[in-house]
């Protein structure tokens, strides 16, 4: 009897994560979707964003989000993969044991601290040495690239680690160098884990808010170069939510809806990939 009660109580508790997800989905959509229909798709996907005057175009923000995310991947993926490969294949056990938590510490640093370092160090550097106002696609990409490192390193690291030792031994026995083993055997074997790490890193970059607000410049137009300021979907929500009312607030939830859909798609891909291995 006691066991039965426990079982059912635990089942209910276990569903709370799902319940929370459903509640979030419901409220974000319920607040955002009606506005998309009210404004019409043409208005919603135009480049004119002036929500207090009935213009709800989010195209320039979508382009902005895509640009900084792509930039972040350009920086984060090579760095992160290199770290993962170096740690699993080329470093001693002690080094591995000590460096992994250090890299994971990067994930613990608050995103506002990254944004702050961006404002104080990176933005002035870009302004003085490369050009433009400093607040830019470039600055955001670099900071986001660093921020997604821990995600990419730890998931690729784990997937490289579970490649059976016999694969390595076999390849080395055939006369391959360690590097040939990495490129021809290990990376293909760990492929889906590595891709998962990149997709989840992408999710982090698309969704990051506070750091981007601080360094992106937030100008409402499609940037022409990587030195131009940019505004993302997330920064628009965070910048305007506290004073928005009526349709304006609903438009911000519509931005949230779009962001939500992007994240769910990325998560589904990641889940599918992980299950296959």
């Amino acid at each position, binding site marked *: 009897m006691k*066991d039965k009660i*426990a*079982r059912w*109580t*635990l*089942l209910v*508790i*276990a569903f*709370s*994560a*799902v319940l*929370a997800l459903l*509640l*979030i989905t419901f*409220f*974000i959509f319920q*607040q955002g979707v009606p506005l998309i229909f009210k404004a019409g798709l043409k208005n919603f996907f135009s480049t004119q964003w002036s929500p207090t005057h009935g213009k709800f175009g989010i195209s320039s923000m979508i382009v902005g989000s895509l640009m900084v995310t792509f930039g972040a991947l350009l920086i984060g993926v090579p760095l992160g993969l*290199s*770290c993962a*490969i*170096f*740690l699993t294949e*080329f470093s001693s056990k002690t080094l591995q044991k000590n460096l992994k*938590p*250090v890299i994971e*510490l*990067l994930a613990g*640093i*608050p*995103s506002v*601290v990254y*944004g*702050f*370092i961006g*404002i104080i*160090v990176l933005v002035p550097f870009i302004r003085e040495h490369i050009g433009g106002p400093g607040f830019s696609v470039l600055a955001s990409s670099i900071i986001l690239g*660093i921020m997604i*490192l821990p995600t990419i390193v730890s998931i690729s690291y784990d997937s490289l680690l579970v490649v059976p030792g016999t694969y390595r031994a076999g390849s080395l026995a055939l006369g391959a*160098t*360690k*590097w*040939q083993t990495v490129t021809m055997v290990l990376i293909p074997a760990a492929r889906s884990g590595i891709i998962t790490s990149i997709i*989840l890193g992408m999710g982090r970059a698309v*969704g*990051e*808010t*506070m750091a981007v607000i*601080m360094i992106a410049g937030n100008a409402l137009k499609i940037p022409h170069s990587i030195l131009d300021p940019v505004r993302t979907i*997330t920064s628009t*929500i*965070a910048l305007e*939510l*506290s004073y928005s009312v009526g349709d304006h607030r609903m438009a911000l*939830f519509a931005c*949230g809806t779009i*962001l*939500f859909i992007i*994240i769910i798609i990325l*998560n589904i891909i990641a*889940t599918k990939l992980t299950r296959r291995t």
Partner: protein
Amino acid sequence: MFKIKPKTTQVIAYSVLLALTVITIAVLVFIILFIFKNGIRELSWSFLTQPTKEMGKEGGILPSIVGTLLVTLFSIIIATPIGVGSAIYLTEYTKGGAIRRIISFGADCLAGMPSIIFGLFGFIFFVIMLKMGWSILSGGLTLAIMILPTIIRTSEEAIKSVPNAYREISYSLGGGKLDTIIKIVLPTALPGILTGVILGIGRAISETAAVIFTAGSSLNMPTSLFSSTRTLAVHFYILAREGISMPKAYGTATVLIIIILLINFIAYRLMHKFISKYY
């Protein structure tokens, strides 16, 4: 065309990988040292224990420290039992199957959700619909949902790694399932579960986007769960972005980083102790 010898490629690849790894570590060290170098001199007893004056230009950060503690504590009190309960169900009561897949997918989606989405949700649901207003309550509940997947995942791993023999011995002595879980499995998995809780605390403390729209940014000392409050991360964000006071911003960031370093260190030590015992 000349062909590079595999041996040479190997040396080049090794050097490049080493260099990129060093760069990554260097970035981390740079961030921490840079904040410390500029912020450590701001730290003083009075900075930690004085109320904030003139929007943060003067005075200390006591209200934000209290606010951070309360919001974090509240979220942990809510999220820990739910998270550990879910993990127990997932590991002890299911063997694969649809229920497990659904719950796992839910937890994974929550884990991958950007914090601004939690902010939007908490704002419309807790603050406006449930009329909790900008408060410790709204902020804590929002953060509880956010850190739930961290606690579920870590507890699940911890409970999974408890050797099956422990359970079997308990059953063979006549212990029921629930007794076995409470008396044998949970105590054994405790360090692992604690690691998850501590990592959750770390996430809650460093969060900004989800709390600024749910707990608000009041600088007054909170008097009840319904008071609006400003956490350290939010205070730091406002100081830095609005350029109110750079020295105070560095000081606040230093406090934040010290807390995060401590939390990660404790979590790492706990996990390490746990792993070396059971693997």
